C-alpha cells in the first residue's frame, strides 16, 4: 500500500436521487413559512415577539390544568372558575390577531421586496401553490396558538375528571370540533385582511400598522355608523366591524350569545351575517392577491 496521500477532486456530483416535484416544493414553502413567522433559524431578536405571544397563548392553559389538579374536581365548562374552551379562544383571539398582524406581512413582503419570487419562478411551483402554501403556514401556526392550548386543557381536564379519562375524552369530542371550527374562523377573519394588506405593502412595519388600523378602525367606524340613525343604511355599516366578526361566530359555534357590545349583533344581524362577511373578505382577498401575484411570478 502506498504511503503517499492522494487527493480526489470530487468536482460536481449530479443529483441522481428522487425528486419530490410539486408536492415537495409546496411542503418546502410551508415549512419555510412556519419557520419565518416564528423567527426560527433567524436572528434571536426575530424570535422574541412571536414566541412571547405563543407563550402567552399556551401557558395559561397549562396553568389552568395545573391549578385544576390542586383545586380538584373540574371540567372546562363556562361556569367553572377558569372558563371553558369558548372563553379560552376568546382570550387567545386577541393574541392571534396581534400575531397575524406581524406574520401576514412577514410571509409575503420579504419574498417580494427582496426579489426571492424570481427563485420561485424557476421552481416547479405555480402562483396558486405558493400562495396556498404561505396561507397554510399561517394556518399551522394559528392552529398552534388556538388548538394546542385547548387540546392541553381537553386532555388535562379529562385526566382529572372523576368520570374517567376515556369517557370524558369521548364524551366531549364535540368541543374539539368546535375549537377547530372557531380556529378556522379566526384564521380567515383576521388572516385574510392581513394577507391582503401584505400583498400591496412594501415594508413589514407599515403593513402591520395599516392592518391594525384597518381592523380597529373599521370596528370604530362600524360603531359610529350603526349609532348614526340619520345615515341611511347605517345599520349595514355595523358589518364593517372586522375585529368582532370572529368573536361573534365563535360564540355562535359554542352555542352562546355574543358578548355585550357586539356591534353587528346590536344592529340586529344574526351571527351568520358575520360568517358571511368573513367569507366575503376571504374570497375578495384570494382574488386580489392572486391577481397581483400572477403579474409577479
Amino acid at each position, binding site marked *: 500500500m502506498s504511503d503517499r496521500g492522494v487527493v480526489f477532486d470530487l468536482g460536481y456530483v*449530479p443529483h441522481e436521487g428522487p425528486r419530490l416535484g410539486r408536492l415537495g416544493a409546496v411542503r418546502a414553502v410551508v415549512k419555510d413559512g412556519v419557520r419565518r413567522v416564528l423567527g426560527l433559524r433567524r436572528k434571536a431578536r*426575530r424570535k422574541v415577539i412571536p414566541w412571547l405571544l405563543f407563550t402567552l397563548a399556551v401557558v395559561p392553559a397549562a396553568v389552568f390544568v395545573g391549578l385544576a389538579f390542586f383545586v380538584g374536581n373540574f371540567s372546562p365548562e363556562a361556569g367553572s372558575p377558569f372558563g371553558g374552551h369558548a372563553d379560552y379562544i376568546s382570550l387567545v383571539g386577541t393574541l392571534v390577531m396581534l400575531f397575524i398582524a406581524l406574520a401576514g406581512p412577514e410571509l409575503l413582503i420579504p419574498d417580494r421586496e427582496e426579489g426571492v419570487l424570481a427563485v*420561485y419562478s424557476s421552481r416547479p411551483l405555480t402562483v396558486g401553490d405558493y400562495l396556498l402554501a404561505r396561507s397554510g403556514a399561517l394556518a399551522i401556526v394559528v392552529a398552534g396558538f388556538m388548538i394546542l392550548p385547548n387540546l392541553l386543557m381537553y386532555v388535562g381536564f379529562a385526566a382529572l375528571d372523576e368520570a374517567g379519562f376515556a369517557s370524558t375524552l369521548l364524551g366531549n369530542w364535540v368541543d374539539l370540533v368546535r375549537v377547530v371550527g372557531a380556529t378556522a374562523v379566526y384564521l380567515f377573519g383576521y388572516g385574510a385582511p392581513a394577507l391582503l394588506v401584505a400583498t400591496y405593502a412594501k415594508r413589514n412595519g407599515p403593513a402591520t400598522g395599516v392592518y391594525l388600523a384597518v381592523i380597529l378602525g373599521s370596528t370604530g367606524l362600524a360603531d359610529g355608523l350603526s349609532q348614526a340613525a340619520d345615515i341611511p343604511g347605517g345599520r349595514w355599516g355595523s358589518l364593517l366591524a372586522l375585529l368582532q366578526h370572529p368573536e361573534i361566530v365563535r360564540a355562535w359555534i359554542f352555542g352562546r350569545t355574543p358578548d355585550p357590545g357586539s356591534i353587528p349583533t346590536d344592529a340586529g344581524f344574526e351571527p351568520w351575517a358575520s360568517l358571511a362577511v368573513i367569507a366575503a373578505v376571504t374570497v375578495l382577498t384570494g382574488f386580489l392577491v392572486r391577481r397581483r401575484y400572477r403579474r409577479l411570478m
Partner: protein
Amino acid sequence: MTDPIITTSGLGHAYGDIVALHHVDLAIPPGRVGLVGANGAGKTTLIKILLGVLHPTVGATSVFGADPRTDPITVRARLGYMPEGSCLPIHQTAADFIVYAAELAGIPPRAARQRASDVLTLVGLHEERFRYLGEFSTGMKQRATLAQAIVHDPRLVFLDEPTAGLDPEGRDEMLDLISRLGDFGINVLVSSHVLPDIERTCDWVVMLDGGRVLRTGPLEGLTDTGTVEIEVVDDPAPVVAALTARGAEVELDHATILFTLREGDAFILARDVLADTGAGLRRLGPKTTSLEDIFLEEESGA
C-alpha cells in the same frame, strides 16, 4: 447540429405599445450559449418567457420539448435561474437558503442539505455558509445567487447578467465558474451585454438588438474571418508576390500580411510560400474578429 433544447418560432412579446421581442426564431443547441445585446434588447424578456413567467404575445416556445406557457411545471422542474437583481433573503443564512432552494425544486431534505454544502463549496462560500445573506458583499451575493440556481442540478440554467456589479477579480472567478458548469453537464444560457464575457464562456451565441435576432450560431464560426495572418522578419514583399502568384487575395497591413484563399488550405499555402521564399516567420495564425466587432457590424447593417 444536435437536437435543440430551446426552440422559438415567430416569438413576439409587447409591453403595451412597446415591442420587446419581434418575430424571434431560434433553435438553441445544448452547451454554453450566450445571449448578447444592449440593455433593452429583449434578453430578460426572452428568459422570462422561457421560464413561463411572461407569456408571448405571438409565436411558440419550447424548452426540452415542453411549452412553458401551458406546462410551466414540467419546464421549471428542469431549470435554474440566476436573475439579474438580488434574489436573496437578507435574514437567512447562506446554508439555510440554499437548502431551501434545493427543496423548492423537490430535492428531499437530507439530499438538499448535502447538495447545498457541495454547491456552496463549489462557488467558494463554504466558509461563509453560516453568515446571513444580508451581510454578504456583492461578489458573495452573486456566488450565492449562482448556488441557488444550480443546487438542484438543473438541466439548463439561465444566468442573467451574472457579472453585473463585480470587480475584475470577482468577474474573473464568476466566468470561471460559468465555464465549469458546461463541464458538469449543465446547459447554460448566459445573458450579458458584456461581449468579452460571452466570448470567454460560450460556444454558441444569439445576438439580439431591439427585440430582433441579429445573428445566431457557433461562436467559432462567427469570429473566424477565414483570413490568415502572417508576420515575417524581413521584407514581406516576396511573400506577398508569391501568395498572389498562387491565387491568394493578399492585403498588406504595415508588416502584417493578410490573405484569403478561395480554394484549398490557406495554411498549407503559407507553409509552402514561406519555404520557397526563405522568409523568417515571426507569427502565423487565423485572423479572428471580436464579438463586439460583429455585433457593431450587424447592428449598423440592420
